[in-house]
């Protein structure tokens, strides 16, 4: 198995000193080249799970294996795209994409530069190589972040609600771009979102997560050919199915929030 999450539990000690279980006994397998979405309401631990796979935190119990290797720390074999673009404002677009290549290509600057330009072309931003991030729109910044993650040639691309902060139109455009990039590169993508449409449109598989504690409640394969615009009706049908599964979870979250409001 390419990526194997087995028996993963993640607990935190809260400020009040109680133990909070963010994830409980998660089992998840991902095949090479798959586009898998982690979908769920806020508080289901989907971002926590992504961060465990990224190696940015460690599970309390269980293990995450990538090609049989246990993940214990972050590394350039896994590219991460965060909700904020996380570009370095003091570097140009070119230098940002170059940033992860500096050490790996120390002896081969020319190849590194070529690689940067190729990836900027892939996200259609090569004209902006010498711009600074603050001169770009949010959507453009996020495309640079995708180029930066892919330039490292990672085995796995982890995306944590990458389009969550963008407006609807930009989001639609970037869906198309991401789908194209995924088909061109054949990368395995793990995509965290709370947007049902987005998950159905992009994924081979949608892993639906529930809350209190965070767990996998359903694993749904989307068997629609791409591009999927033409199957609008089928997509709506699947979205409705997911909505039904998620309905109870969302009720739970809302009730929790309301009771918080009363007690607070």
């Amino acid at each position: 198995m390419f990526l194997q999450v087995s028996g993963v539990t993640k607990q935190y000690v809260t400020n009040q000193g109680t133990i909070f279980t963010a994830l409980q006994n998660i089992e998840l397998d991902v095949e090479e080249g798959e586009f898998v979405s982690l979908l769920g309401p806020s508080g289901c631990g989907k971002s926590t799970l992504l961060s465990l796979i990224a190696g940015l935190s460690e599970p309390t119990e269980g293990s995450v294996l990538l090609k049989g290797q246990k993940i214990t720390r972050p590394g350039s074999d896994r590219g991460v795209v965060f909700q904020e673009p996380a570009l370095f404002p003091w570097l140009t677009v070119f230098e940002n994409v170059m940033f992860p290549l500096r050490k790996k290509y120390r002896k081969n600057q020319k190849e590194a530069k070529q690689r940067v330009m190729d990836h900027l072309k892939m996200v259609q931003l090569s004209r902006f190589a010498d711009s600074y991030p603050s001169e770009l729109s949010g959507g453009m910044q996020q495309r640079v972040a995708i180029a930066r993650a892919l330039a490292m040639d990672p085995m796995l691309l982890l995306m944590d609600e990458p389009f969550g902060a963008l407006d609807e139109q930009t989001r639609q455009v970037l869906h198309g771009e991401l789908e194209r990039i995924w088909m061109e590169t054949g990368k395995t993508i793990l995509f965290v979102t709370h947007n049902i449409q987005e998950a159905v449109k992009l994924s081979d598989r949608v892993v639906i997560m529930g809350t209190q504690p965070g767990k996998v409640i359903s694993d749904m394969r989307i068997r629609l050919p791409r591009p999927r615009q033409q199957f609008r009706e089928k997509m709506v049908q699947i979205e409705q199915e997911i909505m039904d599964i998620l309905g109870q979870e969302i009720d739970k979250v809302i009730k929790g929030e309301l009771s918080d409001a009363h007690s607070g």
Partner: protein
Amino acid sequence: MPILVKRLIFFVALVVIWEGLFRLNLWPPTMLPSPVQVGKTVWMGLADLTLVYDLIASLRHLLIGFSIALCIGTLLGVLLARVRTADETLGILVLAFQSVPSIVWLPLAIAWFGLTETSVIFIVVLGGTFVMAMNMRMGIKNVSPVYIKAARTMDYTGPDLFFRVIVPASIPHAVTGIRLAWAFGWRALMAGELLSTGPGLGYTLKYASDTGEMALVIGVIILIGFIGILTDQLIFNRLEKNVLERWGLETAA
């Protein structure tokens, strides 16, 4: 109307009103001389180079003290930001020192270095170091965690992470620290020089006061203010603005 024109008109008006009031003989010239007298005195001081030498001496004290303050302040700030125990112990001391006006260290400086220029420089160093340290500390502590996370996923750790990500990310705070260190240093310098045996603008101010040359007193005060605003506007304000724009903290005007 361009801002420069507005300012020019304002200052010309100010001088005209001052001169007009002076001519009404409301007060004796020893209390406040006329702008013409002040202008003449400053011009003579500049022409016979006495004020120029004072100016050079003051700027030399300031530059030496300011440079030392930046070096110590930066290192101290990094230490406080990175080492928790240092922050919890030394940090509170630095905070206390920051609230002490640096001129109160003069007796100590005189005991150590005598009534020399070194004492003045020492006061300037104390004036700038702590504000630089506190800003550097804040800059490093406030680096957005997402930058660090992103860098870690790109195989950056240890010194590489520190120098390539944390240090550049803290530059906006550092620039504020530099600007404040200069301003605090400038104030400390004048206080120190007032009590020194020269050379320097502050010393000349004191000397002019002792000999009753009120025109020179006013002239030096104007000079001090002029240099302060000039360095702030031409160097530090621009530097800070450029950095804030580049770092995306302020939209380009």
